[in-house]
């Protein structure tokens, strides 16, 4: 039986639905991310789990109990905010102990639990500091400890890393995952950053315009997107308008060149479809049995670990990502180049 269950959850704020028919079952100890552009309804859904928003329709069930209309202070749900929301008038220790104090726990128990939490986030030496004396990353760790101190049934994180520097963001991301695994706490994480969602989660829910687009493991979401939105939003993608030559054999035509897809294509011969291709599947080597496209190099961008090359092939532009090597011979802008990719790298979607 799922631990946290969102059933047909909807929310409207007067206009079109902010969240429409959201259905999700989260297992105990699972880490689920809501990923989508701003305004897609991911934060609203999270806030309905926390109790800050009342659903227009649907239910929220936690461990078999219906929480839908319970006020947030009776839910036993831990929440971490983008803005940290630490109480400025309280020290780190008092911030972390606040939830237990509100619950009327004895002082000894509070002190012990606060100590334990500060050990967990490796900040025991800063217990007496005030929020304004801490860096953003430290403040967010305290906020995490504060949310966990009450031993919540579910931990909710609303874009917790968005206000931090890139380096701290990656560190803290790993830290959140470590703590989550250590405590085995069921976690729902909201982010607009696909790399964050893919790297941290057991499962990712991709959302768009209030609706769930796809739910799946990160590998699945990235490599087998089921909708055009997911394909375009997660990662970089080449989308080529191709004509189906022979559907059963997966033969496609593109700008006077032929592309073979990995298997049969679900479209009529002569139909126009979109052929999808990740930039990292393309390479400059030629191998037997692989597709080949020739085009003019339009730009070469050196990104460090990656080199991104754009070529114009017929009417389209395709992007190729090559891993950096010290011996790499960078192609020159304006020259003709042939790129290859295996048939199984290509998948087809209907055009919209």
């Amino acid at each position, binding site marked *: 039986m799922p631990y946290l269950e969102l059933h047909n959850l909807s929310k409207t704020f007067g206009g079109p639905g902010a969240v429409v028919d959201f259905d999700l079952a989260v297992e105990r100890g699972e880490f689920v991310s809501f990923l989508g552009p701003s305004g897609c309804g991911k934060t609203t859904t999270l806030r309905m789990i*926390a109790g800050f928003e009342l659903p227009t329709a649907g239910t929220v069930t936690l461990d078999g109990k219906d929480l839908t209309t319970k006020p*947030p202070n009776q839910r036993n749900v831990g*929440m971490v*905010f983008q803005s940290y*929301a630490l*109480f*400025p008038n309280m020290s780190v220790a008092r911030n972390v102990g606040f939830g237990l104090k509100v619950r009327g726990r004895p002082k000894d128990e509070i002190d012990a639990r606060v100590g334990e939490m500060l050990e967990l986030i490796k900040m025991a030496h800063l217990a007496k500091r*005030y929020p304004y004396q801490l860096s953003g990353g430290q403040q967010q760790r305290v*906020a995490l400890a504060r949310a966990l101190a009450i031993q919540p049934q579910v931990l909710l994180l609303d874009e917790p890393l968005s206000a931090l520097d890139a380096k701290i963001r990656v560190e803290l991301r790993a830290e959140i995952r470590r703590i989550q695994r250590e405590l085995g706490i069921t976690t729902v994480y909201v982010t607009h950053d696909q790399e964050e969602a893919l790297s941290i989660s057991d499962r990712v829910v991709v959302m768009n315009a209030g609706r769930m687009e796809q739910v799946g493991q990160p590998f699945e979401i990235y490599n087998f997107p089921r909708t055009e939105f997911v394909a375009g939003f997660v990662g970089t993608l080449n989308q080529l308008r191709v004509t189906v030559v022979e559907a059963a054999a997966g033969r496609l035509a593109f700008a006077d060149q032929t592309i073979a897809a990995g298997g049969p294509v679900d479209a009529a011969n002569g139909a126009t479809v979109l052929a999808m291709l990740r930039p990292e599947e393309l390479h400059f080597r030629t191998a037997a049995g692989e597709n080949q496209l020739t085009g003019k190099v339009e730009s070469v961008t050196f990104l460090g670990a990656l080199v991104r090359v754009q070529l114009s092939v017929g009417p389209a532009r395709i992007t190729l990502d090559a891993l950096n090597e010290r011996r790499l011979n960078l192609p020159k802008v304006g020259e003709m180049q042939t790129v290859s990719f295996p048939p199984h790298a290509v998948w087809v979607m209907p055009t919209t």
Partner: protein
Amino acid sequence: MTISTAPVPGVAGVPKGKRPAEGNRFWSWVFFLMGVLYFLLPLAGTFYWSLRAEKGRLGFEAYRRLFADANFLPSFSESIINAVVAIFISLLIIVPTAYWVRLRMPKLRPVVEFITLLPFVIPAVVLVFGIIRLYSQPPLLLTATYDSSRVLLVCVYAALSFPYMFRSVDNGLRAIDVRSLTEAAQSLGANWATILREVIFPNLRVAVLSGALLTFAIVIGEFTIALFMAQHTLGPYMQELTRSKVYEPSAMAIVAFAMTWAAMGLIYRVSRGQQTQIGAGH
């Protein structure tokens, strides 16, 4: 195009550029001193006058007589108590209101702001006659005895403080992330009373203090309403003194001034003390 290494006029003018800044500082000192004189000269004049009670020499005779007057200290302490209670009532009304408006009804803010401004719009004389008319007949008969009138007076003072209190508290609320702090406290299990007491109030201390100081200063010297409600507070007492004595009113003004500042200083010290205590850990 070549890049010239010759000094550009604007760059060469940098040392000159200092002069306007110095000039500004000169004028700011002039205006500052004018301000100081504007405030201090009348005070100095009053103080000088208050020292001349004895013919031919300067001394504190007027002060001695003032403190010997049996009505002075009671009226002064009555005004202080009125002020403190009015501040308390005002805070109890304004802080939750301003908090709720900011959290849940931001669209109502202009309306609430206008309502809190009403004491500025209505002259004190009009206000007091309205109040006396309303509260001098059943079922709201409050002007019958001195004590019930005093309760009424304190409530009116609380209302008079709304413009200052609301503005200070609202500015204080603007400086903190009210919504996130409230939601964080809620998710940790806190109810509304706990949130106001433990999270909102402590973070509004400076704002509340400035509102309280303004209220205190107004209530201590308030004359019109207290007079019409036949209250023996400092305002009417001072007026009475002015009519009957020559030097004592000046001494009285100086004492009231000093004691008001002392009271403000005390509130300030107490709040600072709390802050350093918190800063030290507990």
